[in-house]
């Protein structure tokens, strides 16, 4: 028996510890918690969010980073199954997979988290405010010793930094501690001590993230000495509206706008000390350059780079936009140093142009694109977790088990595994969750709890009895707004039975008072005039439900963010505006109606479409988690592209891997393999799907709860460069087969020429297939190993060996592979001369054309989508990109989900990728699918769109405008919106020309009541 009393020796602990609260760790936590697993999320810093929260925008969509990440922060904070342990460190992990015992040190903040309301008063009065370099602003802004890291911090509590607080640095009595004196809830306690907590978990996920390279180590670039040399994250903070300059790009030396900016790539990447590429810098510099141009259109921007590594989905198009629409210059040179001009503090860069001239150019500001390094304390963490690190200092993992660490039961995700961008971090976060789920799923739902509520009171037919509570929020609101007069005003409004003020509406003791008042005055509606519903609505909705009132009978007036904060200089007007906001909230509150959710059963089986490495991995992961799987494959056998490939980059033979994978799938009793079958239709919705498949024996319908699309891709074949006309012209795949199957032939070749970017990447608006540079170099190295005398030429635009794949590029160069470059529009020429292949290309060093006679010409043709996606996508009602790959719900934060709930994507069906990446994404899809399949029932309804069929004209507008393709025109010719599928976005409601659709909880009357109340006094 373990201390929690519910496990015996056979069952794993139904809890997982996630170490690291960045985007990857948060995703893993959310997936685990949604699948009935208790999560301990341990984060060493005071707040969640990792590096992503510091970003202004994200590539390649320029989505606002905070806007997309803060809902995730809130989700984590609200999830009852996630125990947040911020400002904490793992001390030790003993035990073994399924039953780990973990010791955690919780560092003291000198602030009682249960009392602190996050009002920020302590930060405002700290005598050291504005004097400590802010981590959040990367040193560009300042904070105090008492601080909240950023406005959207989760948890929203203050921390006292003992390294700067005078009471600690200079001793007791050296500061009057205004923070403590001004703290309304008396949360500050300087006597608090670190504490140690022990927990039991079945698995651990390590997501400690990365650190940025310390640019002061590259002394030649002047960072730290020259004020106008910044790192990319500092520049990002300048771009951000929440940053120290409120979104103005200004030179630190003179606060002037820079007119000419240079970005230097690969600072701390691809150098003597870093034998890897950081994978994200090319794109983030492109983003920052574009944003700088948007801030000040006239800015002249140059990016100094070696290769542009635009290898992900949508990256090439983004890079083209930067060049063509924004006029950003990309210069192919890595300047070895820069100098400051003392008078102007501008920077002088000497570089060699493409045509070999030495040029010197002056820039007002230089941004160093610093690379990713393993977090400094990751060695210590690895030791405590008992896991091995790679030579580069990242987590040691295996190509075919990309998220497994060296210790069973401990998994890794995010840039701890390899430098990666946000979508890959999210993907691996979900993937690591799947691995943990496979281990602990037997104990699903053992440690999570469901809240019990009293029966709901029927208030229908009652007159509105509204309670209004006006929050002081410490001095946040009350310091500006006369809250008492607002409460008095509210008490006069029709329907209001009780109105009063409260110091902190959200503090635990006030919540209890609130509940008593609800009962005492027989209130059937609640209005809270305080902060934002974004963070606090769930709390208050839940509070009224606890006293038997329907949770939809709640309304909020945001008199803080939308009033006291923005009108702090005009208290009278702010008080008037608060009254307006409260009047509006009360007006709507009068019209609120109780809404009820209904429960639907969930079919816990999944369908996986496609039996390649991604599909098989997803199927196995789901089966390991205890779910039944139908694996539908078009071909007679499983394996997909794995049957065509021969060896991996590290030289591993694929055959044993694929054989064991197929064997595991075929012998798994939970997996029903259906070959030679195609999917023709999908009906139903999340948790209750029906799929029609056609197989040789006829047609059948499968009932299931979720779908994973893993239909793969294939190597492009075209007619370029005499392919198909000359037997000496091969694709990379054909070369790989020849190398493995007829090594004798390869040993005889003298000259091999490879041309990169043939096919999809060559077309206008083309895309990078991500794997081909590495694949070509893998084959080039093989040829060199088999036949060192052979000349191998690679003719490429950019070499995109991102992450650790850079080492393949280094190895190829050291083995004597010769690289030539071509620009778009100046592709090499191939002709047949006297029965031999002759290739003419430009030599970028000599600036002259060179002629190569080749025994073998190998075309690197990239990956195109699988045939039939255009038929499958409409059958599943999911979208495709213009290239024909499946389009996920959100390119950054929902990389395996479709907008239609319950359908997921992985592998080449999503975009070209390496096998390890396909495996990680397949695991991610399995974890996401598990969040659906593991639920005993789904709650549907509430705030969804409802059609008044009598009014419907059957015009199809709702059908056409719904972003999720939910409305249908039924057999009676009127619109029908399935309650279980509706997302409640309200788009159809706004567009319906017959006003036949209403969004529950936001009915026209409820919304217009607010507007009418607002203007009641002026119209």
């Amino acid at each position, binding site marked *: 028996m373990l201390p929690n009393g519910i496990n015996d020796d056979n069952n794993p602990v139904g809890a997982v510890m996630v170490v690291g609260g960045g985007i990857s760790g948060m995703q893993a936590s959310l997936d685990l918690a949604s699948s009935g697993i208790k999560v301990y999320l341990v984060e060493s810093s005071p707040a969640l969010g990792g590096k992503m929260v510091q970003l202004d925008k994200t590539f390649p969509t320029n989505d606002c980073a905070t806007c997309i990440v803060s809902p995730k922060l809130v989700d984590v904070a609200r999830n009852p199954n996630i125990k947040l342990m911020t400002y904490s460190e793992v001390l030790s992990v003993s035990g073994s997979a399924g039953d780990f015992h973990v010791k955690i040190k919780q560092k003291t903040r000198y602030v009682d988290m249960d009392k602190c309301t996050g009002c920020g008063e302590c930060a405002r009065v700290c005598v050291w405010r504005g004097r400590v370099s802010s981590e959040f602003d990367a040193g560009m802004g300042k904070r105090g010793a008492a601080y909240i890291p950023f406005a959207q911090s989760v948890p929203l509590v203050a921390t006292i930094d003992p390294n700067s607080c005078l009471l600690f640095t200079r001793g007791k009595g050296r500061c009057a501690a205004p923070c403590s004196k001004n703290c309304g809830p008396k949360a500050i306690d300087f006597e608090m001590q670190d504490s140690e907590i022990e927990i039991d978990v079945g698995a651990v996920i390590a997501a400690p993230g990365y650190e940025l390279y310390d640019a002061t180590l590259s002394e030649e670039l002047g960072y730290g000495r020259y004020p106008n040399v910044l790192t990319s994250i500092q520049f990002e903070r300048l771009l951000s509206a929440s940053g120290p300059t409120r979104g103005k790009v200004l030179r630190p030396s003179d606060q002037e706008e820079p007119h000419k900016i240079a970005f230097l790539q690969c600072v701390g990447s691809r150098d003597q000390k870093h034998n890897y590429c950081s994978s994200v810098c090319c794109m983030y510099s492109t983003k920052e350059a574009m944003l700088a141009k948007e801030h000040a259109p006239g800015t002249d921007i140059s990016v100094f780079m070696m290769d542009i590594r635009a290898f992900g989905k949508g990256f090439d198009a983004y890079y083209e936009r930067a060049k063509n629409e924004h006029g950003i210059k990309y210069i192919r040179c890595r300047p070895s140093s820069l100098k400051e001009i003392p008078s102007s503090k501008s920077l002088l860069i000497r570089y060699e142009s493409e045509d070999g001239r030495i040029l010197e150019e002056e820039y007002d500001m230089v941004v160093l694109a610093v690379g990713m390094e393993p977090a400094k304390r990751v060695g210590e963490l690895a030791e405590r977790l008992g896991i091995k690190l790679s030579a580069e200092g990242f987590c040691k993992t295996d190509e075919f088990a990309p998220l497994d660490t060296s210790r069973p039961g401990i998994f890794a995700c995010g840039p701890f595994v390899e430098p990666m961008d946000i979508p890959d971090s999210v993907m691996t976060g979900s993937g690591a969750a799947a691995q943990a789920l496979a281990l602990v799923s037997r104990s699903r739902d053992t440690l999570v709890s469901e809240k019990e509520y009293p029966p709901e009171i029927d208030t229908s037919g009652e007159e509105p009895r509204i309670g209004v509570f006006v929050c002081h929020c410490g001095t946040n609101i009350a310091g500006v707004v006369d809250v008492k007069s607002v409460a008095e005003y509210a008490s006069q409004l029709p329907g209001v039975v009780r109105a009063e003020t409260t110091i902190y509406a959200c503090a635990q003791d006030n919540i209890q008072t609130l509940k008593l008042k609800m009962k005492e005055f027989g209130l059937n509606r609640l209005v809270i005039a305080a902060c934002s519903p974004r963070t606090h609505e769930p709390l208050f909705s839940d509070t009224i439900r606890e006293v038997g009132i329907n949770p939809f009978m709640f309304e909020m007036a945001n008199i803080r963010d939308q009033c006291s904060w923005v009108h702090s200089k005009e208290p009278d007007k702010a008080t008037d505006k608060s009254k307006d906001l409260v009047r509006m909230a009360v007006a709507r509150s009068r019209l609120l109606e109780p809404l009820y959710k209904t429960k639907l059963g969930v079919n816990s089986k999944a369908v996986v479409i496609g039996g390649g490495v991604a599909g098989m991995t997803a199927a196995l992961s789901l089966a390991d988690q205890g779910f039944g799987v139908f694996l539908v494959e078009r071909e007679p056998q499983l394996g997909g592209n794995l049957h065509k490939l021969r060896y991996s980059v590290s030289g591993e033979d694929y055959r044993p891997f694929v054989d064991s994978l197929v064997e595991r799938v075929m012998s798994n009793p939970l997996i029903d393999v259906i070959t030679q079958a195609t999917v023709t239709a999908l009906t139903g919705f999340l948790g209750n799907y029906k799929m029609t498949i056609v197989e040789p024996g006829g047609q059948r319908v499968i009932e299931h709860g979720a779908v994973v699309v893993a239909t793969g891709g294939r190597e492009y074949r075209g007619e370029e460069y005499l392919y198909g006309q000359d037997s000496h012209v091969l694709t990379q795949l054909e070369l790989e087969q020849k190398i493995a199957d007829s090594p004798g032939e390869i040993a005889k070749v003298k000259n091999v020429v490879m041309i990169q970017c043939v096919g999809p990447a060559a077309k206008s608006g083309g895309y990078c297939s991500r794997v081909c540079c590495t694949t070509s170099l893998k084959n080039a190295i093989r040829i060199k190993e088999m036949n060192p005398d052979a000349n191998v030429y690679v003719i490429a635009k950019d070499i995109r060996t991102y992450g650790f794949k850079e080492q393949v590029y280094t190895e190829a160069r050291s083995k004597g592979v010769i690289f030539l470059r071509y620009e778009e529009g100046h592709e090499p020429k191939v002709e047949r001369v006297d029965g031999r292949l002759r290739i003419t290309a430009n030599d970028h060093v000599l600036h002259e054309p060179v002629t190569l006679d080749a025994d073998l010409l190998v075309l690197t043709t990239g990956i195109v989508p699988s045939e039939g996606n255009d038929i499958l996508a409409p059958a599943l009602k999911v979208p495709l990109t213009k290239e024909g790959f499946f389009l996920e719900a959100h390119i950054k934060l929902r990389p395996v989900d479709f907008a239609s709930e319950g359908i997921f994507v992985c592998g080449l069906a999503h975009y070209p990728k390496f096998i390890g990446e396909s495996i990680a994404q397949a695991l991610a899809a399995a974890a996401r699918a598990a969040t659906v399949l593991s639920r005993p029932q789904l709650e549907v309804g509430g705030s969804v769109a409802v059609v008044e069929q009598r*009014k419907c004209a*059957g015009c*199809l*507008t709702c059908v056409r405008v719904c972003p999720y393709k939910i409305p249908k025109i039924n057999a009676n010719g009127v619109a029908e919106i399935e309650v279980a599928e509706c997302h409640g976005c309200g788009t159809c409601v706004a567009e319906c*020309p*017959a*006003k*036949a659709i209403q969004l529950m909880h936001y009915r026209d009357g409820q919304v217009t009541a607010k507007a009418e109340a607002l203007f009641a006094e002026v119209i």
Partner: protein
Amino acid sequence: MIIAEQKPLKEIREMIAPYKKVLVVGCGTCVTVCLSGGEKEVGVLASTLRLADAVDGNEREFVEQTITRQCEDEFIEQLRGNVEKVDAVLSLGCGVGVQDIAAIFPEIPVLPGLNTTSFGRPSEQGVWVEECAGCGDCILDETGGICPIARCAKNLLNGPCGGSHGGKCEISDDTPCAWALVYERLGRLGKLKTLEEIKPAKNWSTAGHGGPRKMVREDLRK
């Protein structure tokens, strides 16, 4: 469906200027579907007019009502209660609706809020294209299902003309040449041969050139 588009606000305001109380009437059929005269548009237009009046300091009241079809007497009858309270009706129906309301309530001015433009369909959300001219003598069987009367700028029966270039009509590059479409479609149907027959001049009397048209079904008359 019948396609109609809202008249410019200025024109509508000039029309209603003499009146103090106006009933804005929507139609739940074609103009709802082409998003120009359904209940939503009635609400939007009435609110806009109220705002405009408030800005100018005009005293005017608007009443809103939408009926299933403005081209059926029985549905129009449902307006009676409101019509009696106002001094003008602004119809967001097609021209038929405006006239029918006027016929039922001859004592009150009925004003058109829309311009009725064509018979067509939405080619995508927010775009409507004309595809039938109501000529009363359909020849779509001969032209591969593409109507040269509605879709050729010259209503040619033996097209294309010299203005067809690259599949487009000379009037505008976003107008496909109907005869290029006919040619392509007949090719797919293997009926290109039929283009060699010269079509005689069309009988335009059915197209309204012989006066207003009327359809009579004796079997259905009471």
